[in-house]
């Protein structure tokens, strides 16, 4: 249907539209008009993606000069594929309505692992190995060697692309990963490099967060994206953690041992080269003296090693004299590694600032800040000069060089923590050095500065006002949308006590209490008896899950549970978990019913949807606070308090509630779906927790359902499930939660939508 969104003609590829989708478009359009950033929360299953795409494409068509490109960042490959499917639908609709081919090019980009079509390289299963092998076939020196000697293997697909692909741009259309591969096969061009090359002139680019947020990758891939772009971060509730992770480094003892090995390899290679081909080393030296950044850096295939700091921080100077020659640099690296090794030899936890670290390294091993800043770049240059084609072995050394560069570049917003052992196993010596980024705004700042509009959106962003604070930006629009429903298809409840009136809570003081554990068990058993098909339970941590399950076993609760449903447990092992998931789905499909016990913040809670019968109920046992004893977390809390005036408790609650909301949201994947959400902890009913739930959940959380006992909860479930099982057809939704064009344009509905937009 064709919509009029505040004066903009929007083609919407479906015959019906949800009212909240229209409101979302209105808000988004306002943000685009203002050329500012925005923060939008809309429940999952309400067609966020298609709404975003149709509005932005329409905007691009109407204002081709103001808005040239859409960069859509998603988290996983399946999500990227979903976006591409929606985009394809939209473009088909445009074609049908306009009656001609659309001049819009949309494409997905993923890692080499997902795009490689080289017969043997693509068989590799690990991303790093694929990258390494690709590098060994396409690096410029390999190709130069091939030119001299045919026996040196190269990648035909890359050669094909290099020879022809650059002149002929990809014809307009929508290309997902498979389409790119197919196109690559047909033309015999490398799809990965084709996609990377095409990014510059594509209208719509869909890729993962890291291509924009991680300075190591962003520098290479996303450098040339123009300022007049709109950037969308979908599923962005964890965006601050992504930012932090991309700037943090973790160094273990084993890693350092591997570093020493790599250094030895480098050393021997250098001495070999000195005998055979000393010219090349000299050339490199000269280049470094002149301060020219390596001319070959323009060569796209040589991207394997890059600078970990943000572009604005990279020094445009010559490499300092102390590390210019290869031998000196090797000696320098050795000293750095040895120094870190000695630092790891600690008996108690050490926490210090980057400045303190720099002072210490200067007094102990006489290393200045400046050469340290160039470590990453110098190492990259060296490896290029040495023509080492297999990079996979050098990743530990690269990590250390990143650490060295980062620690000497940033003095604020980072901390160094050295722990001699893990808290859980204080007897086992396992020293780890964490170089931790405390400020999530550092990594995302260039994105906010560079692009005119950044859209941060997700199903669960509540409380909205926290994100502008921790990401340090000023949104022009900040809105949370609710879901209009023809029937109350979510049933959130807070269960605070068992049948014996003992309060249920995962508080530290009571979590070992058998009465609490038993009450949790009884709750699960009774819910399992009343709810059909699949039930997903979330615990606060793996440790807690294990203790609870073992005491349930002793109390006979597991046996009772298995009379109703099969039991599956998520573990830290990914393979085991996916096997459990497959069988869980099987058990739900054939009517046996199943319970999945998993962990908030785990793999299940983040990426897996339990739609329809796979998740008829979600139980949240306790509030998923992060492990508060962690020193990294405490350092971050302190930093947030000092820099952004965010109280520790506020942040902890915010973090816990957004994860709780994520877990709860797992069971709702659309308007025809329905699910029960049980929050089993007394503390959820407190105003500070409750008010931080997303608006679309809060709306259905009635006051009467905030302090229930187990049996009250089960009674409510039973009645509600019967109601939900009644036939529900599209006609019931029409006019309330699903609108035709006429209904949308009716005055009454327009008024409602206006009200909604103002109300928030």
């Amino acid at each position, binding site marked *: 249907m064709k919509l009029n969104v505040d004066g903009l003609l929007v083609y919407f590829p479906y015959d019906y539209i949800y009212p909240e989708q229209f409101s979302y478009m209105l808000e988004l359009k306002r943000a685009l008009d203002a050329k500012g950033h925005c923060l939008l929360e809309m429940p999952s299953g309400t067609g966020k993606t298609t709404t975003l795409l149709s509005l932005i494409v329409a905007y691009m068509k109407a204002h081709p000069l103001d808005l040239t490109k859409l960069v859509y960042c998603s988290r996983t490959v399946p999500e990227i594929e979903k976006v591409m499917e929606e985009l394809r639908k939209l473009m088909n609709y445009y074609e049908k309505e306009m009656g001609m081919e659309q001049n819009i090019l949309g494409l997905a980009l993923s890692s080499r692992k997902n795009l490689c079509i080289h017969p043997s390289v693509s068989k590799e299963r690990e991303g790093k190995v694929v990258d390494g092998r690709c590098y060994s076939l396409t690096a410029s020196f390999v190709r130069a060697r091939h030119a001299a000697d045919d026996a040196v293997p190269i990648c035909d697909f890359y050669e094909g692309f290099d020879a022809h692909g650059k002149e002929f741009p990809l014809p307009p259309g929508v290309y997902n990963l498979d389409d790119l591969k197919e196109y690559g096969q047909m033309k015999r061009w490398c799809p990965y490099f084709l996609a990377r090359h095409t990014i510059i002139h594509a209208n719509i680019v869909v890729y993962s967060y890291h291509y924009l947020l991680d300075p190591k990758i962003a520098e290479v891939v996303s450098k040339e994206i123009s300022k007049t772009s709109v950037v969308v971060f979908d599923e962005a509730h964890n965006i601050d953690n992504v930012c932090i992770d991309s700037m943090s480094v973790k160094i273990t003892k084993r890693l350092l041992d591997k570093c020493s090995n790599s250094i030895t390899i480098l050393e021997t290679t250098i001495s070999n080269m000195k005998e055979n081909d000393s010219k090349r080393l000299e050339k490199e030296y000269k280049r470094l003296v002149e301060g020219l950044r390596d001319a070959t850096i323009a060569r796209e295939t040589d991207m394997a090693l890059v600078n970990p700091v943000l572009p604005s921080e990279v020094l445009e100077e010559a490499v300092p004299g102390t590390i210019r020659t290869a031998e000196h640099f090797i000696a320098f690296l050795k000293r750095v590694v040895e120094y870190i090794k000695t630092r790891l030899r600690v008996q108690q936890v050490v926490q210090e600032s980057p400045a303190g670290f720099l002072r210490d390294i200067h007094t102990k091993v006489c290393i200045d800040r400046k050469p340290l800043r160039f470590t990453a770049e110098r190492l990259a240059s060296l490896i290029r000069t040495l023509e080492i084609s297999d990079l996979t072995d050098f990743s530990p050394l690269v990590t250390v060089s990143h650490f060295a560069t980062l620690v000497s570049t940033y003095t604020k917003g980072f901390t160094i923590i050295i722990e001699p052992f893990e808290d859980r196993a204080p007897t086992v010596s396992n020293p780890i050095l964490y170089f931790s980024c405390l400020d999530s705004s550092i990594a995302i700042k260039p994105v906010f500065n560079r692009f005119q509009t950044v859209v941060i959106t997700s199903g669960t962003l509540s409380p909205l006002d926290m994100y502008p604070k921790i990401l340090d930006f000023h949104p022009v629009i900040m809105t949370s949308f609710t879901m209009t429903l023809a029937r109350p298809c979510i049933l959130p409840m807070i269960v605070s006590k068992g049948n014996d009136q003992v309060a249920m809570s995962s508080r530290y003081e009571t979590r070992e209490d058998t009465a609490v554990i038993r009450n949790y068990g009884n709750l699960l058993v009774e819910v399992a008896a009343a709810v059909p098909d699949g039930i997903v339970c979330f615990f606060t941590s793996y440790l807690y899950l294990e203790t609870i399950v073992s005491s349930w076993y002793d109390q006979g609760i597991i046996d009772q549970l298995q009379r109703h449903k099969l039991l599956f447990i998520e573990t830290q092992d990914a393979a085991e978990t996916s096997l459990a998931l497959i069988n869980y789905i099987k058990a739900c499909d054939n009517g*046996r019913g199943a319970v999945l016990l998993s962990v908030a913040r785990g793999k299940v809670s983040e990426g897996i949807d339990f739609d329809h019968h796979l998740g008829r109920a979600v139980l949240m046992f306790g509030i998923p606070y992060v492990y508060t004893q962690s020193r990294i977390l405490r350092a971050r809390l302190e930093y947030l308090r000092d820099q952004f005036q965010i109280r520790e408790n506020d942040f902890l609650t915010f973090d816990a509630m957004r994860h709780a909301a994520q877990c709860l949201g797992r069971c709702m994947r659309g308007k025809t779906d329905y699910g029960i959400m049980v929050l089993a902890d007394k503390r959820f009913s407190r105003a500070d927790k409750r008010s931080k739930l997303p608006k679309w959940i809060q709306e259905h959380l009635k006051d009467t359902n905030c302090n229930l006992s187990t049996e009250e909860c089960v009674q409510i479930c039973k009645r509600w499930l019967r109601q939900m099982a009644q036939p529900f057809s599209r006609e019931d939704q029409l006019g309330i939660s699903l609108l035709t064009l006429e209904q949308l344009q009716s005055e009454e509905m327009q008024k409602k939508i206006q009200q909604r937009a103002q109300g928030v």
Partner: protein
Amino acid sequence: MADEDETKEYRWESGYEKTWEAIKEDDDGLLESNVAELVARAKRKRAALKASGAIQLGMMRHLFVIVDSSECMFLQDLKPTRFLCVLKLLEVFVHEFFDLNPISQLGILTTKLKRSDKITVLAGNQKKHIEALQHLKDLSCEGEPSLQNSLERAMNGLKNMPAHSSREILVLFGSLTTCDPGDIQKTIKSLKDNNIRVSIIGLAAEVRICREIAKKTGGTYNVLIDDHHLKELILSQVQPPAVAGSIEASLVKMGFPGGTPTLNDGTSDSSADHAPAYCLCHIDSETSSLMGPNGYNCPQCGSRYCELPVECKQCGLTLVSAPHLARSYHHLFPIKPFVERAQVPDATHCFACAKLFVEAETNVYECENCNQIVCLDCDLFIRETLHTCPGCASDPVTAQMKTN
């Protein structure tokens, strides 16, 4: 009953019944699934479905009723227990079923302890079924049910039934889980291949596999809201369903056995016909005794039966009596659906029951043939029970037309 006293629950044992919520007015525009509204809607739907006259109905039905008798049937959310409530309603159902489908047959299975038990075989005698249902009341409910086992068993009973009959299974399923020995998808597939329609009534909540079975085999799946709704749902199964797929219209050979000895129809030699003989229905049971002269003889092979309708065990001929067929007649020529009208000013009262139309009643119904106006209740009554329009019947002209 002695054990009924034991199972009788006290007020404080029963679930929370917030009766005031049923009449709650809805402010946020959500559809509160009001019981009354749902029932009315289901009624209209059913009437609408039946209305389209052209569909072929499977009048000759073979139906297996599978009753869940697992542990969860002892729950007391239906009074006195789910199991007793269901049995009671089934009695009504059996009665109604044979009333409306005289030439059909019915059998009853239960499932518990992961197994399936046969209670009655396919037969056309309602007394026997009702008796069996009454015996079932003393049965204990335990273990888990097995959908697959019971469906397989019913399928084995149905698959040899003649192709022109409608093969159906009705499952009353209280449990939320099923314990099956193998892949239930295979069972669903063979059910489909055998043209067996499975309808399921859930007593607790929507179970996906049930929905899938019903959808794939062309049956219906419903979940009750309360016992009234359950009755509504069970009785909706009384109406013969439209024939699924393409069963070709075929001529069915039927026998009309002679009635009482006094009414000799001359089909066979009368002295041999009425000599005392064993009834073939009861020949297997130990209590069988020589029958008197009463009974029905198969006109083809002369076997004696004590009741009709039945399929002759000897020669396979379907034996019915003429009144049985006549009673099924209205399925073949359902009355045309009445047209829904907004209140007509000149009609002040219902033609059928003479009730005055009040303001609250928004819609009235008009017969297209005789243009008489009736109220909603009468419309449903005519459709479901009477099967003939009082307006048309009382008008000599249309009454004539209809018989032609």
